[in-house]
């Protein structure tokens, strides 16, 4: 938990500034820099919980600040924003505080977050109809795709952080879907080529889904 912020209160700009400071302290880099736009998105998703208003201005408290920073921790663990929002919905502040990294014992807070993700997945899955893949499974898949990416880069003779100068463009369409293309060919790419590629990707993915036997 963030003890020294227990009495914290502030407006939107102050929330962003304070959350940024805390993220630097805890080395939370994933998910992009915190911005006003991002905070508005988190409010809409319900991640920050109830937010008070004073006139036209939003007023935030320790709990809102804590939820914002914890969301960054969970993003770093590989959770999706959707799953974070669901998890926060089903947890009280004390339960959430237990998940925050304890600088004196990172391992303990990490295992608590892992156990919590499993416990809450069960709880949420029983409450929400429809099928969904658990956060951790998404994480496992994402990790495996990232590893494959690295292997592919290596096989192309592109070291991940060495003296790499091969001319390849990486299109990160989603964190879990990335495309490599020849940079020279990219220069001559036309809108028609792009459309054809899109259709080819759709066809390939559909075929994979059918093979997997999951098409409805």
């Amino acid at each position, binding site marked *: 938990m963030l003890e020294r912020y227990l009495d914290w209160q502030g407006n939107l700009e102050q929330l962003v500034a304070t959350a940024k400071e805390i993220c630097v302290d805890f080395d939370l880099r994933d998910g992009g820099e915190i911005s006003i736009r991002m905070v508005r998105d988190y409010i809409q998703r319900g991640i920050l919980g109830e937010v008070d208003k004073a006139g036209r201005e939003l007023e935030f408290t320790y709990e809102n600040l804590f939820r914002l920073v914890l969301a960054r921790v969970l993003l770093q663990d590989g959770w999706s924003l959707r799953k974070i929002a669901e998890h926060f919905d089903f947890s009280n502040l004390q339960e959430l505080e237990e998940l925050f990294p304890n600088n004196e014992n*990172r391992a303990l807070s*990490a295992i608590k977050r*892992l*156990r919590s993700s499993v416990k809450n997945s069960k709880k949420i899955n029983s409450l929400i109809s429809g099928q969904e893949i658990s956060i951790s499974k998404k994480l*496992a898949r994402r990790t495996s795709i990232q590893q494959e990416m690295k292997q592919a880069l290596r096989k192309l003779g592109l070291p*991940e952080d060495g*003296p790499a*100068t091969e001319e390849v463009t990486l299109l990160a369409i989603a964190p879990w879907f990335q495309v490599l293309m020849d940079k020279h060919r990219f220069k001559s790419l036309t809108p028609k080529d792009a459309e054809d590629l899109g259709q080819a990707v759709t066809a390939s993915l559909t075929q994979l889904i059918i093979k997997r036997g999951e098409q409805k």
Partner: protein
Amino acid sequence: MIDIKFTPEKNGILVDEGNTFDVLFRASSTENDSTKKTQRLPLNLSIVIDRSSSMQGQPLDEAKKCASMLVDRMGEKDRLSIVMYGADAEVLVPSQPVTDKRKFKSQIDAIYASGMTALYDGWSLGAEEVAKNSHSNSISRVLLLSDGQANRGLVDEDVISAHCQKMAEIGVSTSTYGLSEYFNENLMVGMASAGQGQAHYGQTAEDLLDPFQEEFDLLEAILSRRMRLRILPEKGVSFEILNGYSQDGEGRFILPDLAFGADVWALIQIKINSKICSQQPETKLKILSAYIDYLDHDGVDQRSETAKLIIDLCTREQFACLELDETVKSRATEVRAATLQEVAQVAARSENWAKVDQTMLALAELGEENEWIKASVQRLKAYSTRRQRESFSKETLYKSRKMKQRSVAKNEEIFSSRSESGRPSYLRRKMEQGKREL
């Protein structure tokens, strides 16, 4: 301190051509083994025991014996917790210093068999107990024992392994012990690989004590932990690590812990495009460089010196005169044998015995070049001939992992049963991974 070096299969590559060749990377300790060995790191362990109904009788008795052996070998500076799991998981003894051994043993004796296999719940409770006292100056590890399939709670193998990986990244590793014929070897090996621990199994309950001893011998001998290998290739050079080591978030390869008297190694297949090789013969080419980040014996972050692989360009005539390095050749043969065993394991799982037989022939050929492979294949053949799917599948998977990622004794000799008997248990090449060797 850690010393690292490269040994290419030949001391040269062909001029004006693309080249593909193997290079052995080795890391070894420069410490004086005999002085350091007396000061082993404190251990922070949790033993997680499956007490599901199938453990009834001898399996549970042997598991208790193993747990008691651990208690006997631990000291007052060490911490231990005991977790059991059946339909639910329960902390039997919370993490505490091993001062009152009788107390631990009486709790172990009281375990009885009942219920299903909530394997994840057991592991995660064990990990939590270990995490409570996880420090960089001790070895924190969960030792999980199971004879079955996870069938209660979280059962997804990928997710369980991802959780083991996450904990290993912050210093809590996982070793697994499979028992008898029907445990899920893919899950148990997956957990140990992701959890940066050891994977062992015993065909019978009596075979289990050896691997426990081996693990403890290794824990006592660990010199450097959290070894991360960074490889930096030059332009036009690509490479692949053939041992199956996974990578961390920064792209470094995760190597096994370095123990006293041992080398940690990686077999690297390197490809160099012909453009780079279009230079005068006898030109020295820098191919790649590497270093290792690790935690030393005192738990302090260290980085090794950077080693460079530099190799001569040579003509066809010169190349033909170069001798193959025997150690690189032998290690490459073991890695190939390991890969073939992985293929055979998948084939056996799907009852494709024709493919198993075909792969066994290829393995037998490799055995002509390597006595350890030869002895191992003979044992495997007994299972494939009798179409014993479970035994074959388990032995191939565990042997494959061993061949690819084992710690190697410094100055290792050619394999023979005599050559192995005098070594520390964690450096022995066993003919059969799941059996006690008398």
